[in-house]
Structures are given as C-alpha cells and as structure tokens.
C-alpha cells in the first residue's frame, strides 16, 4: 500500500511497524518521548507501545551508547535516537572501540543488532556544535553500517532494514528533509538501500549524500533549461560502500562531481572520489570535483553560513566549469534556504 507521507512520518511509521512486529524493538534517547517527539519522528510510539518501549534517558551519551550495545548483546533491538549527530562524539569510544569491533573480537559469537538515529543538518544559526554530519568518520571504522536516507521511502525502508539488521547501523537524517512529502510503499522490502540514480542524464554525474541530492536536483533543473542533463546518484548507504552505480554512470558521462554533506578532508567525498578516480581512470574526461562544507567550523551568522554550506549554486558553477559552459545568470532562480526549504513531493 502506497501513501503520501512526510519523511518524519515515514520514520515514525517505520519504527511503529517494527515495534509491532517484534517486541524486542525499543526506541530510546534524550527527549524521545516528550511532546516534541524528536521533530515528530517518534510520534505515536509512546501512546502505542508505552513508556517501557519508548523512553527518555539522562544526559549520558557515552553510557547510553554502551547501554544500547549491552541490550543488543542481550537479544533486544534498541534504536537510540539523538537530536544532533554532534552529541554522538560523546559516545565515540563506545562506537569506534566497542560497537564496531565486539563481534569481530568474539570470533563471531556476539551479535549487536542496534540502530543509532541522529539528525544532521542546518537549523536556525545552529553554529559549530550543532552541525556535524560524521558519516565519513563512522564509516572509517570497519564493523559499522552507515546510511543517509533521503526520500520518505528511504526513511521508511532504511529504518526498517536497520532495525532488522543484525549489525550496528547508524542512520543520519537531515533536518530539512523532515518536511518532504513523498509516496511511501509500506510493503517495500526493508533494505539498506545502496546508491541509486534518482535522475538520469548524460552530461555529468553528481554523486550526492542526503540533502545534497535535493540541491543537485535543483541544480539539474536549472541546468536542464540550458540543455545540460545531470545524472544524479543518491548514495544512501555510505558504508559498506558499493560504488558501482556511480562508476557505471561516470562511464557514461565522463564527468563526476561528488557533492557530500560534510567537510571534504578525509570525508566521504574523499573516499568516493578516490574510488571513482581509480575505477573510472580511463573514462573520466576531467578530474573529479568535490563539493562540501567550507573547511572551517560552521559559523552562526547567516551570510557566512550560506557560504559554509554547499548548495545547488555551487554545483551549477562547478558543472559549468567542468563542461566549459558560460556562466548562467541565476538571478531569477530561487534556491533553498531555511525559510524556503523544499517540502516535496519528492
């Protein structure tokens, strides 16, 4: 059955679905059951499943990450939710020293089916401590799966798949995606979806993560008016990474931009660019360009914040340069901002 849902609803719906199916699934984290319900993404869970299966915690990210691991080792399927990915840095020891390696060290005798959900992205001048993405950092440590659902269908299918997965899975959700509405087929196979072509084109491949997919679609819309068709790949699952879809696209287009929602330095964009440079050595007609955060902490003030974040405009400008096109006049185009977030349908 397919229904139109927002991304936030799709998340809450997916959790409810899995909690219904499996009593060992529970959702916890700071402020998970309060009236704001993590921007609505845990809506309805406490009413339906009670406070034993949807509960808040003290401010203790380090221990609570360990608690999730311990509960998973004991046969439960915890979903640990964080309103900002930055706070996960407090649990980094548990994530990178314990969660990622416990199964391996046990020679396969332990299993850790747990999910961490954390919100990334832009708010209202959130500044340096509320703006990190971290998917590249998490992916760096073998033993973790890391995904960034973009569409409501992704949110639904990937959260369900993550909960069913026998491994630790970290899902990062961009705040601006929450309002997007799109068709959600509730019978869609729960899968940690890999890279997918979300828009076909022939001129240049743009491989994107999370919100950058939306920006790339906007860039494609603008460029299409000038006869340039971008092919857009949404990576979705960054670790383990299968870059085949991107490589196939680049084999066709000969041009590639990696547009990542993170800093470039040793981030996911570096990994993908290194792999595609390697794999598509013969078909690339010019160097891969990377687009991401400016290499500074995120500033609060809006004009600098606008420069900090990568956008459709960056993609357009880089594409023009790569393809040797004249600069398009963008004065009459409207781009996304805090006030004008894309709302969908996706």
């Amino acid at each position: 059955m397919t229904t139109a849902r927002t991304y936030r609803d799709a998340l809450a719906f997916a959790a409810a679905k899995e909690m219904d199916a499996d009593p060992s699934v529970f959702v916890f984290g700071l402020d998970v059951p309060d009236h704001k319900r993590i921007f609505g993404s845990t809506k309805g869970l406490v009413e339906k499943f009670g406070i034993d299966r949807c509960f808040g915690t003290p401010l203790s990210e380090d221990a609570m990450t360990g608690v999730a691991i311990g509960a998973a080792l004991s046969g439960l399927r915890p979903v640990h939710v964080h309103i900002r990915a930055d706070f996960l840095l407090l649990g980094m020891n548990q994530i990178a020293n314990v969660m990622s390696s416990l199964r391996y060290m046990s020679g396969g005798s332990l299993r850790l089916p747990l999910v961490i959900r954390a919100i990334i992205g832009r708010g209202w001048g959130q500044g340096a401590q509320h703006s990190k993405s971290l998917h590249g950092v998490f992916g760096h440590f073998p033993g973790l799966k890391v995904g960034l659902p973009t569409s409501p269908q992704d949110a639904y299918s990937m959260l369900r798949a993550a909960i069913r997965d026998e491994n630790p899975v970290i899902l990062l959700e961009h705040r601006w995606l929450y309002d997007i509405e799109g068709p959600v087929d509730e019978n869609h196979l729960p899968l940690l979806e890999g890279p997918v072509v979300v828009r076909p084109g022939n001129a240049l491949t743009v491989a994107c993560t999370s919100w950058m997919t939306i920006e790339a679609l906007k860039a494609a819309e603008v460029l299409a008016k000038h006869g340039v068709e971008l092919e857009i790949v949404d990576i979705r699952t960054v670790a383990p990474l299968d870059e085949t879809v991107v490589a196939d696209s680049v084999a066709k287009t000969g041009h590639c931009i990696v547009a990542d929602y993170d800093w470039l330095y040793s981030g996911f964009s570096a990994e993908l660019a290194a792999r595609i440079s390697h794999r598509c050595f013969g078909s690339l007609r010019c160097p891969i360009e990377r687009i991401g955060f400016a290499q500074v902490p995120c500033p609060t003030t809006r004009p600098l914040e606008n420069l900090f974040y990568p956008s459709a405009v960056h993609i357009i400008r880089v594409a023009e340069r790569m393809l040797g096109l004249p600069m398009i006049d963008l004065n009459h185009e409207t781009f996304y901002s805090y006030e004008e977030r894309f709302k969908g349908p996706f």
Partner: protein
Amino acid sequence: MLTKSEGLQLYRSLLLIRLTEEAIRSHYHLDEMKTPVHLGIGQEAIPVGVCHCLPKNAVTFGTYRNHALYLALTQETDRFFAELFGKETGLGRGKAGSMHLCAPGQGLMATSAVVATTIPLAVGAALAHAYRKESTPVAVFFGDGAMEEGVFWESLNFASLRSLNILFVCEDNGLAIHTGASDRRGFSSAVRSVQGFRCKTASADGSDLSAVIRATERLRAEMAQSKQPGFLHLTYLRFLEHVGINEDFAVGYRDSPSPEERIARDPVARFTAQLLALGCAQGELDEMRTGVEAQVECSLNRARDARLPADEALYEDLLI
C-alpha cells in the same frame, strides 16, 4: 547585609538581564536574530549573586544559557546584541551566536552548546592558576542536566584531588528541555550526591538574590579554609520554554505556577521587595529601569545597524 548602594547596583544587573531578555522576546519574531536563544528569565539572581561574591579577576565559564552570566559580568549590551544579530561587531564576529558567547577580557572564558563541556575547561583554568600559584578563583555555571554527564564527575574528582579553587555552580531548574529530574537522576539530592568527594557544598533558593549571595559567601569561606573546591546548588524556575521566547506551561509537561509561585520565583520581584524594605524608593528603581531600557534599546538599534561580516571572514579566525 547589603548596603543600599550595593543593592541598587545588583538591582540594575537583574534588571539589565530581564529587560535584555524581554527585548529579545519582543524582537525575535522579526527574524533578524538568526540564532537559537535560551533565555534566562527566572535565572537572573544566580549569576548576579555568585559573581557579586567573586573578585574582579575571577574567571568564569558557562553554558548556552549564558545571557544572564554575560550581562552580570559585563553590563555590556552592544557587542552582545551585535552577536545575536550576527554582526561583525558582535562578540564572536557573528560566528558564535547566542550559544557560544565569550568575553575573555571580562573573565568569561567560554560557553558551549554541548551540555557539560565547559566544566573540565574551568577545571583546567583552575589548574592553571594553581600552577602559577595565583589565587584567582574560577566559577563554572551549568544546568542540572550536566550532572548526568560523566565529565562532570571526572572534573569534580580531579578538582577535589588537586584541591583546586573552583566553584561548581549547578543552576537547577529541575528540567532538561522537557524532562523532569525524576526521570533523569539516580540520586535524590544533588548536594548529597557529590559529598563523597573532597569538596564543600551549599544550596540555596536561586530565585532569591540575597540567599544566593549568603550561600556563595559562606561556601567561599569554607573553600578558602579547607582548600577544597565548592559545589553550589541553586534552584530556580525556568519561566520560558527551553529554547525560544515563549512561555510553555500550557504544553503539559509541567504544572503552571500559581500567581504566588510566580512572584516567589521571580528574582526581580523578590529583590525589588527587599530593596523597598531596605528603604529604596520606588521612584529610584523606576528611574533605574528607564536607564536600563534606554541602554537596551540603544544597543539593539546599534546592533541592527551594524554591518554583517564580509565573505572573507568565513576563513578567518581558524588558525593563528
């Protein structure tokens, strides 16, 4: 006992905080201050009272709920508002926003949007003073939620181990966002929970400026005598929502205060009553209010008129 002139000075501080926060409340909807604000209405007496007891050279650290602390320490509103407006003339050239204010020149070394993170920094500052054999005291302000973070306990342990001159000030509003203490604490008394460490403790009604001052003075005296750090537990009512400008008693996660409670937990109202009892005239207080109003209004306008940082500023201030 406070003298009248001290009292008036303290009153001005309380009022400056209150009127600054109220000014934010009335201008925020214009969307010019593009930064999340954690307001201090109800909290005023804590930084005003504690800082009153500290020497001028004291070093302080705070949280994202830092307006009251900043204003109590500096009485300054120009660079403050400029920061909230994201202007080049702001305390952090607009890069800080409301949650990361600092003013090292006035002793406010750092504040942070990640709960509890400035606590060990304050301990490091206290260690630096001990290292240089200076008597400069340090005070670190944090919410009750910060006590649940491990780093609070690590910091308390180290400060107690090294007998550092640091005052841990727990600003206890009984809430972490919308979650009450009973859903977060495995202990029944914050003060008792720390008493196993080699530190001195005190608690008081943080809505009552005089009580805050008395408790701070007593605790500081005990700290000086014992050469131990201090833990000061002060309760107060957060009148507004966690972040933002509105009241949210109607939402349902906590009870609405009775009219009596509203007055009892309003530091400005309580201290006003005490000042009047001390022999201050209402006119004097009203006059002071007019002055503070003018200061706030003027700073707000200056901030609005100031220029935004230039594009080049993006890459500035990172590395030296």
